[in-house]
């Protein structure tokens, strides 16, 4: 969502748009009262669409400068699914025969209202719990990894992590399609567009694992 009052310049644009919109509504209403109402409702709809991010331009692709170190750096972003067998197997395969450096990022998922009001203690504590558990399970599977808590937005969490961890590869772990909020938001596709690093997607079906 784009906040139209984010700064003074954005608020100034709102003034100009309101002025233009009001003139349109008045002109339409002079022709016919109902036409004025229709134009007003159409403008409100367009404004809501724009606020929802309708006209937002895609940010430029972030270039990751690799440090050329001997270890293969793998950045994993996962929320609940990091404990899944599929992910552990994938990381085990990637780590086979090479020196690997795995960083696991657990986004502190939070409601929009809590994020806006910086009330994220609960979300960070929950993420820390999942992270500790996940790191322990990865260690059991023979994968040496370290972890950190990231931004509630998985793409932002990836971007933050890449600033200090120039990964050779990104792994995004999600629930299966239909149950994954991240897939619905297009996190994997957007990660591929946003970072010039190969992005792997692993689907972890925790429900199937627990039923087995």
């Amino acid at each position, binding site marked *: 969502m784009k906040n139209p009052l984010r700064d003074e310049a954005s608020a100034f644009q709102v*003034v100009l748009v309101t002025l233009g919109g009001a003139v349109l509504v008045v002109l339409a209403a002079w022709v016919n009262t109902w036409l004025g109402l229709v134009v007003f409702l159409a403008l409100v709809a367009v404004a809501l669409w724009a606020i929802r991010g309708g006209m937002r331009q895609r940010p430029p692709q972030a270039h990751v400068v690799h440090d050329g170190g001997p270890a293969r750096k793998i950045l994993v972003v996962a929320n609940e699914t990091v404990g899944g067998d599929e992910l552990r197997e994938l990381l085990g395969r990637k780590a086979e025969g090479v020196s690997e450096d795995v960083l696991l990022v657990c986004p502190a998922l939070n409601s929009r209202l809590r994020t806006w009001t910086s009330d994220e203690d609960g979300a960070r504590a929950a993420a820390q719990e999942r992270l500790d558990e996940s790191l322990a399970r990865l260690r059991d599977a023979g994968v040496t990894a370290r972890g950190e808590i990231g931004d509630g937005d998985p793409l932002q969490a990836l971007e933050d992590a890449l600033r200090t961890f120039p990964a050779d590869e990104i792994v995004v772990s999600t629930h299966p399609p239909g149950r994954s909020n991240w897939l619905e938001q297009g996190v994997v596709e957007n990660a591929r567009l946003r970072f010039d690093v190969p992005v792997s997607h692993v689907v972890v079906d925790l429900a199937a694992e627990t039923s087995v």
Partner: protein
Amino acid sequence: MSAHAEAVGHEHHGPPPANRSSRLDPATLGMFLFIASEAMLFGAFFTAYFFVRVVNPDAPATWPPPPFEFPVFVAGVNTAILVTSSFTVHWATQAIKRGDRNGLRAGLVITILLGAAFLLTQMVEYAHVGFNTGDGAFASVFFGLTGLHGAHVFVGLSLLTIAAVRAFRGHFSPEHHHGVEIPGIYWHFVDVMWIIVFFAVYVL
């Protein structure tokens, strides 16, 4: 080496800075939430206005009810004054972002003058409008809505005056200008509300 590191470590006094996840800084977030509550307040007044207008027996053919008339021309001039003041406050903010202190001061002073002219004109309009709050529901909502807006202009002027005083004392820089930016957002909000009030009450 360790002594130096320790000294550096003790440069910061007091508790560590609070962690915040919001990409809005707290001051802007506070103004945003305040404006959201203000929009609801105006919404309540607009609801009352449109209700009174719809239940008017002659609606929508005649508004306001005869024999009263709104001073549309004076209100139009006032609208032009207020819209212009949005341009000048934007100019002031852009000026300090470029490090132009004179532009900041000039922009703020002109904005304050325009805002004061708006209030003065509104007071003159009230004195000559030809009806009073006791002349029916339409008059009550007219004075309620425009008076509520006038009170907001006064608050905005107070904020801008504080910003101007600080600007003349040498405060603000291209990196730190929240004291101008936030009153600027509020002023634009006040302007947007007036545009809606003007077109809804005087023109439509």
